[in-house]
C-alpha cells in the first residue's frame, strides 16, 4: 500500500483537492481526499508542492503499431470481399508490440492509456485496440479489444483511385461504406431466414459490419471537412450506427448537427502543419466551440503525427482558444477514457480505478510544468531524477 500525501489532487471527476491524500493498494486507488488517515503499513510518498493527476489518455494514435510513421502506411494493404478499401476484419491487436519505443515514450511523458489502430488510408481500415502503455504481456496490457472499427472519409482514402480502384472520389468513399452496411444488413436478414439453406456462411468481414449495425461496435470515423462530416451524419441517420468523429477539424462549422446526434469528437492533432487542403480551416478554437455545444470532446496527438510528449500541450492550446480548463483536462483524461470505452478503469482519481498517476511540478495546464513521475497501476514507471536519456547514459 502506498499513500501519496500533500499533493494538489486534480481528480478530474470532482473538484481540485489541495493538500490531498491518495491511497493505492494492489494497483488500484482505494481512497482520495483531504485529511485521510494513512495506515501505518503504507509507504508514504510526499508530494508537497506537486500536482497529482490521473495518467493521460490518448484517444487516437498509432503507437505500438506504427510508432513514428505516417499512419496510412499500415492501412493500405489487404483486401476483402467488400473491396480493396474495406477491410473491417483486420485486427490491429496482432500488430501491437508492447516493447515498442512509442509506448515507452508515451509512459515516460505521462500517457498511461491509449487507443491505437489502423490509419486512415481505407474507407474501413480495421479494428482498433485500447492498451496501457506499460507492461510487457500483450494479453495483460490490452484494456479493450476490439475498441471500434476505424473508417475514413475525405482526402486520404481517395488514393485508391490512382491504382484504378474505388474510391477515387468522396462519392466513392460514401458509396463504399453504404454498400458495406447494406451487405451487412442483408447478411443479418438472411441469418434469420426460415429456410436454413438460405442462411449465409460465416463471413468475418460482414460479422464486424453487422456488429457495427447492431451498435455493439463503435465506428471511429476520420473526417476533417464539414461536408465530409455531413456525409457521415447522413449515413448515421440512415443506419443508426454508433460513431465518433476522429479529427473533426471543421466540426465547429456544424456543431449543432453533431450535438443533436450526441456524437463524440476526438479533435486534433492541431499542433502540426496544415499541409493538406482539407486542413485549411483548422483551429484550436474547435474543441472549445464543440464543448459549448454540449459535445463530448477529446484531444489527440495522433502520435506520431504530433509527438505523444505534447498531448498536454495541445490541451493547453485548446484552453487558450476558448475551451474551459476543466474541459481541456478532461479531453486528455476522463472524457477521452469515456469515448474509448475504458472510463470504468482509468481517466480520473476515483476509488476502484487503476492507480495510473501523473506527478507534475505545477499546474497541468501550464507549458512550464513538467512531468516528474509516472505510476502505472501503482508502480513507479518514470522518475525524472533517476531517468537518463539514451545519450546521457
Amino acid at each position: 500500500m502506498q499513500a501519496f500525501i500533500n499533493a494538489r489532487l486534480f481528480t478530474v471527476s470532482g473538484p481540485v483537492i489541495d493538500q490531498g491524500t491518495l491511497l493505492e493498494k494492489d494497483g488500484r486507488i482505494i481512497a482520495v481526499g483531504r485529511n485521510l488517515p494513512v495506515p501505518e503499513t503504507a509507504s508514504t510518498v510526499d508530494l508537497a508542492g506537486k500536482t497529482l493527476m490521473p495518467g493521460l489518455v490518448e484517444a487516437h494514435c498509432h503507437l505500438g503499431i506504427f510508432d513514428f510513421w505516417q499512419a496510412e502506411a499500415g492501412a493500405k494493404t489487404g483486401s476483402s470481399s467488400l473491396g480493396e478499401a474495406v477491410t473491417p476484419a483486420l485486427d490491429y491487436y496482432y500488430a501491437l508490440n508492447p516493447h515498442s519505443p512509442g509506448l515507452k515514450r508515451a509512459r515516460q511523458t505521462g500517457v498511461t492509456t491509449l487507443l491505437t489502430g489502423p490509419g486512415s488510408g481505407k474507407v474501413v481500415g480495421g479494428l482498433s485496440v485500447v492498451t496501457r502503455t506499460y507492461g510487457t504481456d500483450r494479453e495483460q496490457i490490452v484494456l479493450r479489444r476490439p475498441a471500434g472499427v476505424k473508417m475514413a472519409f475525405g482526402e486520404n482514402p481517395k488514393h485508391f483511385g490512382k491504382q484504378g480502384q474505388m474510391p477515387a472520389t468522396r462519392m466513392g468513399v460514401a458509396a463504399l461504406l453504404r454498400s458495406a452496411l447494406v451487405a451487412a444488413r442483408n447478411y443479418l436478414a438472411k441469418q434469420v431466414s426460415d429456410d436454413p439453406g438460405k442462411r449465409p456462411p460465416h463471413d468475418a468481414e460482414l460479422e464486424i459490419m453487422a456488429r457495427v449495425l447492431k451498435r455493439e461496435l463503435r465506428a471511429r470515423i476520420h473526417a476533417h471537412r464539414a461536408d465530409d462530416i455531413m456525409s457521415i451524419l447522413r449515413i448515421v441517420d440512415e443506419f443508426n450506427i454508433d460513431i465518433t468523429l476522429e479529427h473533426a477539424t471543421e466540426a465547429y462549422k456544424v456543431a449543432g448537427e453533431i450535438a443533436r446526434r450526441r456524437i463524440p469528437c476526438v479533435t486534433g492533432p492541431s499542433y502540426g502543419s496544415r499541409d493538406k487542403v482539407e486542413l485549411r480551416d483548422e483551429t484550436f478554437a474547435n474543441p472549445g466551440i464543440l464543448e459549448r455545444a454540449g459535445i463530448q470532446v477529446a484531444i489527440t496527438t495522433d502520435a506520431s503525427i504530433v509527438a505523444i510528449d505534447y498531448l498536454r500541450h495541445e490541451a493547453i492550446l485548446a484552453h487558450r482558444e476558448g475551451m474551459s480548463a476543466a474541459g481541456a483536462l478532461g479531453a486528455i483524461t476522463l472524457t477521452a477514457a469515456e469515448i474509448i470505452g475504458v472510463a470504468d478503469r482509468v481517466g480520473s482519481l476515483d476509488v476502484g480505478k487503476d492507480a495510473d498517476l501523473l506527478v507534475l511540478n505545477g499546474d497541468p495546464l501550464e507549458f512550464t510544468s513538467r512531468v516528474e513521475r509516472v505510476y502505472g497501476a501503482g508502480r513507479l514507471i518514470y522518475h525524472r531524477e533517476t531517468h537518463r536519456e539514451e545519450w546521457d547514459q
Partner: protein
Amino acid sequence: MLALLNATIWPAAGPKLERGTVIIDGRQIVAVGHDPEIPANALRLDCRGRHIIPGLIDGGSRLGIHEDGNGPIGHDEDEIGSNEAPYLRAADAFWPEDLAVTDAYRAGVTTVLVEPGNQNTIGGLAAMVKTYGSHVDDLVISHEAALKVSLTGQIGRSYSDFRERPEDIARLRARLEQFSRSPKEEAADTRDLGREVWSRVLRRELPLLVHVYREFDIANALQLAAEWGLRLILEDAPEAHLAADILAEAGVPVVVGPLMVPRFGERKWLSLRTPAVLAQKGVEFAITTGHPTIPIRYLLTQPATAVGEGLDEEVALRSVTLAPARIFGVSDRIGSLEPGKDADLVVLSGPPFAATSYVTAVYINGACIYEQKQSPIGERSWGGA
C-alpha cells in the same frame, strides 16, 4: 507619437522593467525606461497589468514559401533536381497572403527568416521578412540573410532516401576550393550568379547557414568553417546539447529546433533541455519552429517548455527575439526594445510564458496592426462534479 505606460517591459537587451514606458515615434522606438520624459503631443496608452515584449522572431521558417492549406502546389521551398543552386532566393517565393503569415503576426511574430528547405546540398539564399506590410518588397529586411546549405544528406520526403553525407561535404569543399581561388572582380562577360554568392561567403559578407542533425554533422561544419574562415550559423541541430563545448569554443551560434517533434531517426536524441545546456555553456542560440513543422503561431510554446526544463525566462525570450536578430545581422533594426530600433512590439495580457497570457496588441513599424480586446482564454475554474 505614442507612449505605452505602466507595463512590465521585457526589453530583451537588458533586464525586465516593472512599471515601465515605451515611447514610439513614427516607425521607431524613441525611449524605453522607468520614467522617460513624455512629450506633450504623445498619445498615452495605459498598459497597467500588461507585459510588452519585442516583436517575436523565428530564425528558421518556411513561412510563406511552404503555404498552409494549399497542398503540394503551395510547397515552394525545395528546388528538387537542382542540388546546387546558391543563387535561389527565398524571397522570390514568399507569398504574403499565406494563411500562416496572418497567424504569425496575430501571435506576435513580426519577423521571420524564410529559407529554402533541407533537401538540396546548396539550397539558396534565406531572407529576413516582416510579417505585415503592403507587398513583398515592403516586408523584406534582408534578401540575403544567409546561404542555406545542408550537411545531412537529406533528399526526398522519405527518411529511407538519403544522399550519403560525404557527398555533401565533398561538394561543399569543391566549391569552397574553386571559388577561393577565383578573381575578386568579375569580367563584364563572365558573370556567374553562383560564384558571386560563394565569393561573398568566402569574404565573410554572407553567413553560411548549415542544416545539421547529429553531433558529428556539427563537428563537420565547424571544421569546414575553420578551414576557410567562414561565418557559420547552424540550424536544427537536435544534438546541439552534445556539442555545446565545441560550439562555445568556436563561438558559433545555433538556431535549434523544431524541438517539440517526435524523437526518431536523426532526431532520436533531441531534448528540451538543449536550450538550458547551450545557455549554461555560453553558446548563442535561437529557438525555431521550423514552420510548418511546428506552426509559427506556436513559437512561444517551445521556449516556454524549455523554461520548465531549466532555461532562464529572459534567455528564453531572447531566443525568439534578440538572439535571432543578432545571429542574422539585423539587430541594428529589430530584436529588442531600444531607442532607434523599429517599433515592432507585442503587448501581452500577462507574462510571456504563462498559458493564460494572450496577445492584446501587435505593432509593426510603429503601426498597431492587430488588437484583441476580449480574452480568448476559456473558463478557468476547474469545475468538478
